[in-house]
């Protein structure tokens, strides 16, 4: 039993932040709450923590209902977006805080607290910073100290609000991997909020996609990428070409080999599901506009001049070698073949 949310709703004035959310998170997962800003993901995280009270619904942690429990009784660890380190305390004081505010009977001795804090500092690889103040640390160090502070109380659930949001791009990359490894080591159920789909894909074992206070889809990163539940998820995760049957020339689409739809009239096609070949008669054609190197892959920009209203751009991706073998130049025509599509209404 990990975390169960039942019928959670929350309004701020007239604005509906969360509308009847059901969510079941198994023990030990590392879950990303992913969505655009204003989708309710941070509110949901704060409701799980008890920093926000839902208007309706229940929160269960490890099988116990905690909806009416204040945050201090929920045994959660919370890492704030801007860390919220206590700036008048040293790093040591920050990490020891949760241990020192325990009721006298449950409190460890100062010697035990010292050992525990140093063990945590080792865990986050910052043992030499114990006597520094937060203002003397870099952003990445503050982030890790905030994490160590949250872990000190041995939380049953670890909650992180945009954990990499305030960091430089290079530090962010390192910390993502580090967080994933740390989670493997500790195996504590963890939820983090992010608006960055790449980050969610790279770090999480489960992704929950939120939009306008609704859950759009929950699943593993590959589930979500390969089988998006709806148009929103398909667009939000990864890049997608959108073909609307009512706006695109159906003859062109048929020639591209696109399977006729069972349901729906909008086709979403991932760039790697578009194949290019030398243009011949009876094929769907487009003009090569430009291309960019993405490491091992080439991204090709194509202009579909036969689209009805305006000139639409199609993105295709393929390995370098394959693109070289085609031997086409900018402005030349190529044949477009669509291998696979998701259909939505």
């Amino acid at each position: 039993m990990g975390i169960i949310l039942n019928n959670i709703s929350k309004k701020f004035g007239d604005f509906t932040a969360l509308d009847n959310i059901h969510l079941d998170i198994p023990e030990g997962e590392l879950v990303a709450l992913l969505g655009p800003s204003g989708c309710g993901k941070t509110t949901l995280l704060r409701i799980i923590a008890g920093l926000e009270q839902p208007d309706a619904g229940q929160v269960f942690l490890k099988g116990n209902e905690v909806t009416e429990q204040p945050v201090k009784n929920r045994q959660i660890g919370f890492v704030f977006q801007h860390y919220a380190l206590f700036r008048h305390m040293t790093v040591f004081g920050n990490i020891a805080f949760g241990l020192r505010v325990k009721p006298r009977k449950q409190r460890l001795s100062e010697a035990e607290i010292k050992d525990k804090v140093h063990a945590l500092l080792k865990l986050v690889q910052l043992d030499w910073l114990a006597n520094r103040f937060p203002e003397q640390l870099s952003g990445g160090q503050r982030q890790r100290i905030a994490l160590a502070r949250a872990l000190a109380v041995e939380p049953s659930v670890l909650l992180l609000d945009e954990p990499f949001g305030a960091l430089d791009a290079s530090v962010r990359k390192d910390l993502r991997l580090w967080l994933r490894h740390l989670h493997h080591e500790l195996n504590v159920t963890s939820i983090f909020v992010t608006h960055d789909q790449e980050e969610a894909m790279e770090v999480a074992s489960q992704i929950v996609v939120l939009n306008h206070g609704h859950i759009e889809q929950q699943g593993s990163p590959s589930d979500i990428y390969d089988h998006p539940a709806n148009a929103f998820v398909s667009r939000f995760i990864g890049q997608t070409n959108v073909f609307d049957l009512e706006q695109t020339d159906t003859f062109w689409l048929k020639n591209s080999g696109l399977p006729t739809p069972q349901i729906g009239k909008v086709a979403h096609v991932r760039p790697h599901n578009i194949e290019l070949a030398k243009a011949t008669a009876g094929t769907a054609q487009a003009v090569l506009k430009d291309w960019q190197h993405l490491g091992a892959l080439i991204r090709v920009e194509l202009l579909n001049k036969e689209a009805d209203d305006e000139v639409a751009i199609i993105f295709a991706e393929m390995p370098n070698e394959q693109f070289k073998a085609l031997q086409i130049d900018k402005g030349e025509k190529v044949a477009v073949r669509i291998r696979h599509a998701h259909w939505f209404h």
Partner: protein
Amino acid sequence: MPGFRPAISFTLVYLALIVLIPLSALLLKTFQLSPEQFWAILTNARVIASFRVTFGSALLAAAVAGVFGFIIAWTLVRYPFPGKRLFDALIDLPFALPTAVAGIVLATIYQPSGVIGKAIMSLLGVQVAYQPLGIVFAMIFIGLPFVVRTIEPVLQEFDTAMEEAAASLGANRWQTFIKVILPNILPATLTGFALAFARGVGEYGSVIFIAGNMPYISEIVPLLIMTKLEQYDYAGATAIGLVMLVLSFILLLLINLLQGWLRRQRGQL
């Protein structure tokens, strides 16, 4: 950028004429006294008593203003209540109200027949006006806005995520207040306290009407200087004035240090 020479020249000349040269007169006049004379003036029992009354009252008043000011700043920042903006604007009244007006009004209210004076007299059996206690009340009045206006912006900028972090780590509201909020508001509170103290020490107008001005008991230093001047005892007035000036310099230095601390703290993170 143009205009440095005229701006700095005017600034320095004006500063010298209005502030520095007159202030140096105090110093030079004191040097005309022999050390023995100087010492005799300062160790006079009435002078010592007036210093004790002034600094004791100012210390007590600044402490009370510190507590009151903290409560008011906390309430104004944290809790909504009807008429809040009006009360917020009123806090500055002691800055804006001429001290003579404050003086006669406070004396009227706290005298034994006054609105509050009578109530305190019948409840506690204590007389406020024309006693050292009256001096303390006047200095609280004059010091209150210093404390409120120093704490208020710091509380407004206080990162409430720190409170949430404390709660998420298991601290109750009281522990959060004592261990997280208070240490972060402390520099501002101390600065406000020091400002109120400095103002109270030098205060004249709002105090003399309520003080009773009895030598040895309720006579403040500024009044003693005034009295010496009226008796043409320039040497006495000057010597006492110089000591007051030096003490206010020390206070100013202390306040600058506190404010530096406060600025550094506010600049953090």
